[in-house]
Every structure is written in C-alpha cells, then in structure tokens.
C-alpha cells in the first residue's frame, strides 16, 4: 500500500493528467459532478454523492453515433465515435455503489451484441475508487452486499484527514501506479484498517441497512406486477426523469436523427421510462398511465434485470433517488412495500 499527503493531491492530479484525461468530482455552478480536471478546478473528493453518477463517462447523456451526408445519389456515412487513439482516461474517486453500478451496466452494454461506443470508453478507462468514510442516512449499499469501505476498481483509495492511501488491484491499476510512483510513499495499512472499522460501525446504523428483498424473485413476477399497491405508491409521481437521470444504473436511451446544414447526425440520448413518449411506437404507447411507467422502473430494477442476470439487482443503494425525488418517492418505499415480510 502507498500513500500521499492530502496537500499534495494536486500534484497527483497534475501527474495523472499528463498521460490521462482525468475525470474527478469537481464543484461547478455550486454542484459537484464529474468533470475533466484542470489546474484551478475545485476538486471535491469529500462529496459523498455527485449529482450525476460516473456512468456519464461511459454512457454520456447525449452522444453522436454517426453522420450521414448525401450528394446527389451518394450517401456517405461518417464515423464520429470517440477516437481510441486519444488519451485514455482515469475516473477518480468512484464510490463503491457507483463502481458496482458500472458492473450492472457492463452486463447490458458488453453483452452480445456489444455496444462498441460504450466498450471503447470502458476499455480506455482506469477506475480509481474511493472508500466511503462518512455515509449518510439515504445510503443503503450494504442492503445489496456492497462494502463501501473497500470498493474494487483498478485502484482503491482511502482518504483521511492527512493522506490518501492507494492500493492497485489490476494490471491497469499497476500501470497507473507506475505513472505516479514518484509521488507515492509506502505505508498506511493501519490507518486504512482503522478507517474501515469505523466506517463499518457507521454502516450498521444506516436506517435502510437491512431491507428485505426476498420477495423480488422471478417466480413472483406476476404477483408483484399485479400488486394493487403500485397505484398509491405512484400517485404523487410527477413523471419527471430525475430518478432515472441521477441513477447510476439506469441505461435506457433513445436514438434520433437531427438534421443539420451539413447532413444528418444520428445521436442517442438518455431516455426515461417515466416519460410519456418512452418506447413510443406507431400504434401509440405501451404504457399509458404514470402508474404503469412507475411500475416499469422498479420492476426493471428489482425483478426483470435480476431475473436475467443471476439475481443481481440493478439498484446499488446509492440513495440518489431518495435525496433527489422532488416529491420524495423512491425505491426504498417500493422495497418496503413489496419486498418482503421483514420490512417494518
């Protein structure tokens, strides 16, 4: 294990940025989100939850897929994808929940047929995770078996009042470590163990630590789908996309064409099952009420996705929806209502 003094972190960022594009939580316009690092930017590793999750780096909210140009009868298709020969990048400060979320996305985008847009960014990225030391009441990653004190990733880091502690886990992680070696010194195991123990003690006190998810099984699909509780649970839903867009695992997108003076651009952008035009087809929409759209979102997270992915839920307990829903609806309420008998 290595360490670097907190006040030297800027040197570390600067060193990483020599060879990599560095995405890191940065405060901009009052809010902390992942942005490309540069000298003078206000890095905020202490921020527990960025508003948008790091998924944006692999699966941008809006992305051009290709361009079409027509001249007479000729149609030219221009590849506009991110160029692999550009700098690889580092995602720095990814929390355990958000890292697990990338695993959830990988199962979608890297399964056959592989989404090559996602894949090229994913492969070019080295992920440096950061252990949590100050979880808050809306956190419930431990309900999904995630250990916030020891996230995986290419490199795992821990931050305390004095130092950042650094441990490489993979080949990519070793390569990044080699690139910044001159700034690191050995040591820190004891401090890290102490932090893990103190954070674990906090984690046990999280109010949603022991959510009962036992009823969310493929065999209960119809019963859950028909449950009358969806009606009252969704009543206050505004049908906005906040929960979807702050969610680290939501993965739906729409593909559209945009006409410009220089041809047509085909782009994709995040879509939300909360929206009235989601999966709109020629005959109309398959889900005509907000209750149906609301149900779709949570059934996907808790039943459909796990039934296709060996029981892995596509919620990681980051709690962003708990904090951000304008009307205070969230997945915890759904789990408590439908998840099983052991929810109070």
């Amino acid at each position, binding site marked *: 294990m290595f360490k670097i003094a907190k006040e030297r972190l800027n040197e570390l960022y600067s060193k990483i940025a020599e060879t990599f594009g560095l995405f890191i939580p940065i405060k901009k316009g009052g*809010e902390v989100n992942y942005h490309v690092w540069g000298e003078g930017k206000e890095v905020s590793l202490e921020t527990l939850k960025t*508003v948008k999750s790091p998924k944006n780096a692999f699966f941008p*909210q809006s992305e051009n897929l290709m361009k079409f140009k027509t001249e007479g009868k000729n149609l030219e298709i221009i590849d506009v994808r991110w160029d692999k020969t550009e700098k690889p990048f580092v995602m720095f400060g990814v929390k355990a929940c958000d890292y697990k979320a990338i695993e959830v996305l990988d199962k979608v985008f890297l399964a056959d047929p592989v989404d090559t847009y996602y894949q090229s960014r994913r492969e070019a990225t080295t992920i440096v995770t950061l252990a949590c030391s*100050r979880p808050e*009441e809306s956190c419930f990653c431990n309900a999904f078996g995630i250990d916030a004190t020891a996230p995986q990733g290419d490199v795992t880091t821990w931050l305390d009042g004095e130092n950042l502690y650094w441990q490489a886990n993979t080949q990519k992680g070793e390569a990044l470590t080699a690139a910044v070696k001159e700034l690191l010194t050995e040591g820190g195991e004891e401090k890290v163990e102490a932090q893990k123990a103190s954070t674990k003690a906090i984690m046990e006190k999280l109010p*949603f630590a022991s959510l009962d998810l036992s009823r969310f099984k493929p065999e209960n699909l119809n019963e859950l789908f028909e449950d009358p509780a969806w009606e009252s649970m969704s009543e206050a839903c505004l049908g*906005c996309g906040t929960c*979807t867009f*702050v969610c680290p695992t939501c993965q739906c997108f729409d593909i559209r064409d945009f006409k410009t003076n220089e041809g047509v651009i085909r782009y994709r952008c995040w879509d939300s099952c909360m*929206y009235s035009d989601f999966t709109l087809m020629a005959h109309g929409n398959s889900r005509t009420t907000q209750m149906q759209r609301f149900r779709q979102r949570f059934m996907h997270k808790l039943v459909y996705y796990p039934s296709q992915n060996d029981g892995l839920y596509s919620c990681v307990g980051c709690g962003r929806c708990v904090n951000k829903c304008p009307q205070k609806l969230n997945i915890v309420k759904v789990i408590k209502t439908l998840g099983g008998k052991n929810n109070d």
Partner: protein
Amino acid sequence: MRDVELKMKERASELLKSGEVARVIGWKKGEFYHDPQPASFESVEELNAFVYNGFCGANLSKYLIQMSKKEGKTAIFLKPCDSYSFNQLVKEHRIVRENIHVIAIECQGKLDIEKIKAKGFDFVTEVEENGDEIAVASLYGNGAVQKDEVLLGKCETCKGKVHQVKDEEIILHEMQAGKKNRFEEVEKLEAMTEDERFAFWREQLQKCIRCNACRNVCPACSCLKCVFDNPASGIAAKANDDKFEEQLFHIIRAFHVSGRCTDCGECSRVCPQNIPLHLLNRKFIKDIDGLYGEYQAGETAEGKTPLTSYTEGDAEPNDVVNGEVR
C-alpha cells in the same frame, strides 16, 4: 406546528367520515421526519400516516388537475403561496372549482434539508422544530440551526401570508412574511454586464440534466402534451446538450409561463442540480410589473392578464430594453 398538524388531521377525518369529501390531499409520513410526500387520503385509517411539518414544501395545487376530475369532492390543504397557483389553475380552466374544498393552512416557512445537511448534519436521525430554531440530531453530532438560514429558497422571499382562496382555514398562529425582497437577486443579475450574465446562466444551465422536473412540477405548465415531448412537433428536444439548444429550453419555458407564473418557486425547489430557475420567471414578473403595472398572477381566479389583454398604451416589445421602454 404540531398543533396545526393535529387540527388538520382531525378536520380531514371529519370530512371523510361525514362523506362531504371523497378524498383529502395532504402529506404522508416518509422514511424520515424530513421527507414527507404528497398523498391523497380516502379513508380515516389512511390518515394514520398523515403529516404536516416544516418539510411540507411541495405545492399540492397541480395534483388537482387529475384529482378534481375524479368522482366526489376533493379537499386540499393549501399554504398561502399554493393558493395563488390554485387560482391560476381555475382561471385557466384546468381544475374544476366546484369539486374542490380548499382548506387554507398555516405556514411558517418551509425548510430545506440540503441546507441543514450542508451545516454538517449529513446523517440526520431526528429534526425538531422549535420556532426559529431547528434542533438536529445526526450521527456525526447534534446541534441547532437558525430557521432563517435553512429555509427553502422560495420561502426566503415569501410573498406574504394571505390566502387568495379558501373555503375554511386552520391558522392557529400569526404568520410572518419573508424577510428578503424577491427582486433583489434579479437586480443583481440586471446589474451585470451582458457577458457576465451570459456566463452566469451558461454555468447554471450547463448543469441541466433535462429531467423535466421543473416543468412537470410547475402549475403553470399544464399543457396536456408538452411540445418538447411531442415527436410530431419537429422540435421535440430530448437530448441534453449544453450548447445553446439546452439553454433555450428554460428560456422558452419561462416565456411560456410569463404572466401566468405565480412565483411559487417549485422549479428551483425540485431542480436536482439546484439551478436558480425561478430567477428567469422573476425577471419576467419584474418586467411585466414595470411595463404594464404591478400584477400578481393568481391573486384572483378571474380577470384579464397583462399579456392577454391589449390597451393602446401597451409598450411595444421591440422598444423594450432591459425591462424599460426605450
């Protein structure tokens, strides 16, 4: 506030029991003290979860678009600021007034949990409201914060404490108006150079994730189908793009609700990126006041509005610069 909550619950119970109303719209207990959610109650049993406290900031009036068309009468609890939205919705024929029983309720300003957490209480276990002081218990330490410092943005500049509509009221204590002048922030923006102002809005609007929460919560945004959701409109804009197109969405929306926006502040309350969207609306309100005489949308449910009536003395839009006639 506890006494107000009890009275409200009692009244809701009476109304449901007697059959005078089929449902009551209010707030229901959440997972914490600080996250009550809007809810409708159809039976006395359901009222067990009823709650009214400093975190009931949501404006409930827009729910009436659906609820007032249901079978039977709907009772609704409205804070003074929500009553403006109610009138505006009646004026625009979005809600059915005869089917609604308005209970005007006391409001002493609502709280912003994010502001409380930012004071170091980021594992809130308990909140207690003691007048101007809010006691907060958190896993990382207990303490107290001054209410003035943790009010929702919209409550800092509260328009006043007079309900613009009511069928009955539950007001047990005197209410205070906001301490800040609501046009102060607008004036700051007006005092900027064009470049500074552009940079300000650019930085703010770049944060937009296009979740549409501002639009969907807005009582003035009551179109059955928003033009931006309609693929047939040719301008359906789903992509979040931090170039000019994105900034246009908010500006177009502000134009569309101008003259109808009551300044309820919900747009800024719900924005996940805390973009001060209300400032766009407020700028238009200030301009309308200056150009056509003071006007407050939602003060009444009748009458013409400055932008839907014409007089010969009206300012010509082309002659107006920075809210003043050139």
